[in-house]
């Protein structure tokens, strides 16, 4: 009995100290002087632009990584390709690699004297310190989530249902649309939620390639850092609250998705 309480207490205590306290503090500091200063801080042109840019990048990165994530998962599970195991491992790279390293490698590729940068600059394409490189960084960082969620579900459902659809006269595309997608839909949803959270919170890789020019190439996380460094603490706290709010919203979305997945995803044959 005591052991059980000990485990429970230490687990909850740990979570409270490590996770809850800092986030709660952010909220407290942001609203310390009431709603007015908070509202003023997040409606400055730079803050609004940072929020808009962050959402714009996510809106492109999430669908791309969802579509290609599903394709990657199918390739990994369904096709015995040479080096399939390697692909499976490489997909995890963004989880293992520090975002700063990712940012740096993109920088080296697209800088004026980099591998692709020279050619692109000559053809008038500005990658670095602009939208394209920021998007690439975000795509790189958030690639694994959909793949990681979908792969085990695809493995578990096997090819039986797809084969059954084929013998019933269903084309490959119809089978994908009517059989495969519904079977993996909760895994995809969960993956999308995680991808979104990762995109919104991305800092390291993006900050290296974006240049962080306020009102132009600054995402919300960078806005937090810049505000903090410029002693605009209210601005930093307010933007942090927006980020935390978005994160909490994704968490809530996740918990709404979870039980449904358990109800319909695990219907056993």
């Amino acid at each position, binding site marked *: 009995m005591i052991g059980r309480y000990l485990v429970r207490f230490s687990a909850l205590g740990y979570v409270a100290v490590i996770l809850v306290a800092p986030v709660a503090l952010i909220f407290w500091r942001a609203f310390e002087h009431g709603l007015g200063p908070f509202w003023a801080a997040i409606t400055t042109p730079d803050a609004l632009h940072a929020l808009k840019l962050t959402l714009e990048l996510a809106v492109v990165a999430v669908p791309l990584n969802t579509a290609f994530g599903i394709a990657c998962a199918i390739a990994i599970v369904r096709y015995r390709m040479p080096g399939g195991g390697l692909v499976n491992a490489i997909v995890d790279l963004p989880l293992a690699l520090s975002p700063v390293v990712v940012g740096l490698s993109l920088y080296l590729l697209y800088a004026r004297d980099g591998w692709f940068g020279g050619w692109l600059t000559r053809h008038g394409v500005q990658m670095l310190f602009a939208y394209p490189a920021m998007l690439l960084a975000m795509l790189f960082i958030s690639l694994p989530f959909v793949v990681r969620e979908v792969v085990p579900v695809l493995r578990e459902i096997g090819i*039986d*249902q797809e*084969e*059954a*659809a*084929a*013998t*019933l*006269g*269903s*084309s490959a595309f*119809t089978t994908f649309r*009517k*059989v495969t997608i*519904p*079977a993996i839909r909760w895994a995809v949803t969960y993956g999308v939620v995680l991808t979104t959270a990762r995109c919104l919170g991305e800092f390291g890789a993006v900050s290296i390639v974006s240049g962080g020019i306020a009102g132009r190439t600054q995402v919300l996380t960078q806005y937090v850092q810049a505000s903090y460094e410029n002693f605009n603490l209210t601005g930093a706290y307010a933007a942090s609250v927006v980020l935390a709010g978005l994160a909490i919203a994704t968490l809530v979305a996740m918990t709404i998705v979870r039980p449904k997945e358990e109800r*319909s995803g695990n*219907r*056993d*044959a």
Partner: protein
Amino acid sequence: MAIETRNVTKRFGDFVALDDVSITAQSDSLTALLGPSGSGKSTLLRVIAGLEVPDAGDVFISGKEATAVAPQKRGVGFVFQHYAPFKHMTVRENVAFALKIRHRPRTEVRARVDELLELVQLTGLDRRYPAQLSGGQRQRMALARALAPEPEVLLLDEPFGALDARVRKELRAWLRRLHEETHTTTILVTHDQEEAMEVADEVVLMAKGRVEQVGPPSELYERPANEFVMSFVGPVTRLAEAYVRPHDIEILLSPDGADAEAMVERIVHLGFEVRVELVDAEGERLSVQLTREAAAELELAAGDVVWVRARRTRVFA
């Protein structure tokens, strides 16, 4: 519609699943592919359905070469071993699947699904999900789903494999009746000889990727081509060099005309029949099947010394 495979060979890596297999299933017949696991029977069924591409050989459906035809275009209904239900669809949606993707009018789909559900005795369960059905119900739903597009050929992979003994027996009789109603050329894969004997017009007995014997159930039982067939399709016991069915052995109380002497080791009463386990002079065990009356007349007891005579034996070279 007749189905034929000619010299079909299929390998998975080093494993030869099918080795030069040629079989024919007559139009409107019910053929059983019988064999132990690893005999290649399921692989052969999947080759016929187009789910596996053979390394060599050809498949003909209704006299037309079908080896390179996609499974979608073969007009084949397939019932999978674990039924492969579409888990996110209701029973009705499952059965309607083949009709919906063919864009049949809604009223027609409705009517056809109702008719099929009645045929497989699932009327009233149409709004359930596969997870809410029993094994037998799921099996019948899979069958209705496969029958929906009116396939020329019905292929069943261990259709009763995952069900308990009582349900299996019921479904077997039901399947036979269904076959008589629909007259669809049917091939059924099973490892259960009793099942094959009971439902099939013709049995193809396979082992290690090869066909051992083809014939009606009675022929396989009465005239087995080899030792494997004899022991696979029914109980068998050995008397010196010969193979005998346990019901083809007589127990005698005197040595006159007997083939061998033996001692009664155990007597098992199985209701209608009585099984007598014997040990001969060399210590070899043999088993004899008697009717209850015959056993009662002999008044046997464990430890008795008796003589046995085989009515018919088979010796394989």
